[in-house]
């Protein structure tokens, strides 16, 4: 224990300023993230400054662990015959334990706690702050373990950095080769219909465990034997075997249970697949195809297939497996593409905005022309020759349609005033309201950890005047647009694991034109009675239906 204490304190003494700088940057990043959106609304010099500071902090927070791990490991290097510690009575196993303990405490737990404290200060929400610790610890532990493993294979910081660059380049190369091989051998792309919108994290968890095992094996091997190539070989063997096991792992323990949309979804008399026989199918050049197969000459055939009986406030994403049989052959395929089609007298088939309108009834959109297109599923992808040969020939179309259903509903509302809140997990807070003569801008903060196992969720914020039974959609403002392109997402998302996020919306949306004769718009009087409705869209499950159409003609 004396060795552990002595080496631990020595490392702490050596790294104290770097650690302080890193922890400071971690906390500062959270703080900058919390004020960034406010300055975004003000604009000008402060915004440029905060964007620049945010970018720099992001760099520091990402790169500082690399330097810290290098300093930590290379003070007693394992790949250097001139290392001071090698001839001192320091047990390698104890040295390894000390370094790992130091990394766990100062590079994993303490930053996570510091970040949680900063999040608590920013959000005034201790539950959310505590919720950041777990994900932070896991992600940071994976990062630090990987860095420590690579550091044990290198004698100095410079070699370490070069190795990191090499590892990243190698991974990109290997992934590129694997993806290319898979693409040319098996093909993938629009052929597969997604089974669900739920995320199965089993693969991610297994890969994380594999990273930890490989890192642990490298670290243990290096500290015990200091035989570089033996350690690298051991790590490579474990990585290859582990990857093979992960690839064929049968037990999907982290796959969430598929939700049931409700009894109505099982009722085949209520929910059925239907094709409008009057409307002509839509033919378009294929936008993409299986990798390795050119789209030149390929055509998509989209048809107005819909599932009837689905409540109007549901978003439907449809994939179809279709077969068009002729007397002397057949065309078939699996597609999950849908196309926006605009036509006179359309019924807003699978219209993106229709569920929102339904959810907000009896309010109507302030600007009318938001139902500008229908979404038709592509049923077949055929060659131009097939289309020319078979295009006008009637055939029997057999379709198996699978629809992923997401319910849209108003989950809460906030008066249009600073400090108004809605919801609990996540909680939404209106932080700023800027009223303009022709509308307003609203800064909304989401507070709460995004939980992976919660079925797919999306929130939209609609400005509503319930008294007038009107609502307006807004345009989201892209935050952090002035930061470096590479870091824009990172800077806005921040490192607090999504504990909070700021969003700015300009109302009314400029992207939605007024209807003809629609003179109504937002003014101060309209805003006085307005609130912000939180419209939640959540995945509710899937339904599948079959449809057979005789006499289907691709090209009429």
């Amino acid at each position, binding site marked *: 224990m*004396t*060795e552990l204490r*002595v080496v631990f304190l*020595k490392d702490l003494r*050596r790294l104290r300023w770097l650690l302080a700088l890193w922890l400071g940057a971690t906390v500062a990043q959270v703080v900058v993230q919390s004020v960034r959106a406010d300055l975004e609304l003000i604009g000008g010099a402060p915004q440029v400054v905060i964007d620049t500071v945010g970018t720099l902090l992001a760099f520091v927070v990402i790169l500082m662990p690399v330097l810290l791990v290098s300093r930590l490991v290379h*003070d007693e*290097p394992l790949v*250097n*015959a*001139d*290392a*001071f510690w*090698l*001839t*001192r*009575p*320091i*047990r390698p196993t104890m040295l390894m334990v000390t370094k790992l303990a130091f990394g766990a405490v100062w590079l994993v737990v303490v930053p996570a706690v510091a970040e949680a404290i900063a999040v608590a200060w920013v959000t005034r929400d201790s539950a959310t702050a505590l919720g950041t610790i777990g994900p932070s610890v896991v992600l940071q532990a994976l990062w630090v373990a990987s860095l420590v493993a690579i550091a044990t294979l290198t004698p100095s910081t410079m070699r370490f950095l070069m190795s990191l660059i090499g590892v990243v380049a190698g991974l990109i190369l290997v992934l590129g080769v694997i993806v290319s091989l898979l693409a040319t051998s098996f093909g993938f792309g629009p052929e597969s219909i997604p089974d669900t919108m739920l995320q199965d994290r089993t693969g991610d968890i297994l890969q994380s465990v594999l990273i930890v095992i490989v890192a642990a094996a490298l670290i243990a091997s290096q500290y015990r034997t200091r*035989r570089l190539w033996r350690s690298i070989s051991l790590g490579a063997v474990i990585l290859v075997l582990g990857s093979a096991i992960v690839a064929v792992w049968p037990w999907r323990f982290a796959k969430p249970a598929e939700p049931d949309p409700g009894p109505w979804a099982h009722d085949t008399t209520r929910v059925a697949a239907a094709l409008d026989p009057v409307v002509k199918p839509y033919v378009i050049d294929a936008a993409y195809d299986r990798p390795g197969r050119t789209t030149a000459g390929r055509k998509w055939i989209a048809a107005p297939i819909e599932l009837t009986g689905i409540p109007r406030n549901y978003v439907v994403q449809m994939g179809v497996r279709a077969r068009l049989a002729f007397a002397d052959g057949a065309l078939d395929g699996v597609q999950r593409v849908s196309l926006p089609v605009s036509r006179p007298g359309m019924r807003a088939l699978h219209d993106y905005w229709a569920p929102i309108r339904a959810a907000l009834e009896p309010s109507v959109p302030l600007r009318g022309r938001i139902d500008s297109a229908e979404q038709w599923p592509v049923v077949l992808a055929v060659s131009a020759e097939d289309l020319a040969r078979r295009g006008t020939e009637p055939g029997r179309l057999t379709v198996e349609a699978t629809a992923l259903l997401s319910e849209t509903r108003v989950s809460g509302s906030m008066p249009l005033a600073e400090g108004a809140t809605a919801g609990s997990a996540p909680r939404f807070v209106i932080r700023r309201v800027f009223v303009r003569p022709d509308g307003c801008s609203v800064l909304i903060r989401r507070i709460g950890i995004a939980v992976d196992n919660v079925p797919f969720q999306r929130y939209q914020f609609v400005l509503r005047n319930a008294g007038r039974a009107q609502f307006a959609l807004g345009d989201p403002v892209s935050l952090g647009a002035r930061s470096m392109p590479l870091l824009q997402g990172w800077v806005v998302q921040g490192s607090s694991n999504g504990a909070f996020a700021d969003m700015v919306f300009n109302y009314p949306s400029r992207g939605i034109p007024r209807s003809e004769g629609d003179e109504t718009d937002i003014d101060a009087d309209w805003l006085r009675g307005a609130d912000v409705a939180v419209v939640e869209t959540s995945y509710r499950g899937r339904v599948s239906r079959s449809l057979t159409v005789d006499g289907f003609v691709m090209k009429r």
Partner: protein
Amino acid sequence: MDTVLSASHLTCRYGRTEAVTDLSFDVAPGTVFALLGPNGAGKTTTIRTVMNILRPSGGAATVFGVDSRQLAARELATIGYVSENQALPLWMTVDDLLAYCKPFYPSWDDALAARLVAEFDLPRGRKLGRLSRGMRIKAALVSSLAYRPRLLVLDEPFGGLDPVVRDDLVHGVLELAGQEQWTVLISSHDLDEVERLADTIGFMDGGRLVLCERFADLHARFRRVEATTADDSAAQSVSTVAAGWLGVQRAGRVVRFIETRYVEGDTERRATAACHADRVEVFPMTLREMFVALVRARRDADRETDKKVPR
């Protein structure tokens, strides 16, 4: 225990290069063993193998009876190691270094450390990175002597130091080693300091131990001989080179060579006979002269071998 350190058929390879080949030697307790040899002879590799920094490819070395591959904290707590190449923690001050090392050694002697720091005139509060090379070596020595190691291993510790610093260190190490009856293994290019320190000399060349002998014996059997003949032709006619004569040179009437098997009276007789000499003078040799003679002789022998090997 008869030996503190022992190497038996020790071999060490770097890839395909054999840095040390079939090396065997023993270091007796309380003696100073000096490994000498030109650059690339394998001295540092030998020491690193003995210290378990490198693994032997063949053979074995033992320290205090423990296989070098099994050297653990218990043994290392009684071994002092200083190398010119050693990477010291340069961010530490001298005091930091000593304070850091102290808890690892049960036998650490604060008084001895303080005495050595004072003797070596080390600035206690200055970072090692800001010290001169000589000062750093002194600091490393203090950190390796303060726990009174039973074995002191010095790998080229004084290379490149100015004479005053070197003298300080040699004096300090000599004095302590003598007082404490330490066993010392030293590799060095500095033949003068080795001459003062060493009880036994191991001469390495090309990864092999060419010679391993007590310094007193070596000193007794090596002589520089100058035989003067009556005329130039007599000197040129010397054809018989006796066994043990190295580097035979002729200059005018004088024939010079190194006698490696000196026996008083006998060497003079053989030189007189072989060189047809009128006068034979015999001079004692310094370690430097012996070293140079051995290296030259070995290189001449290698050249001869190369000539004979068909290509």
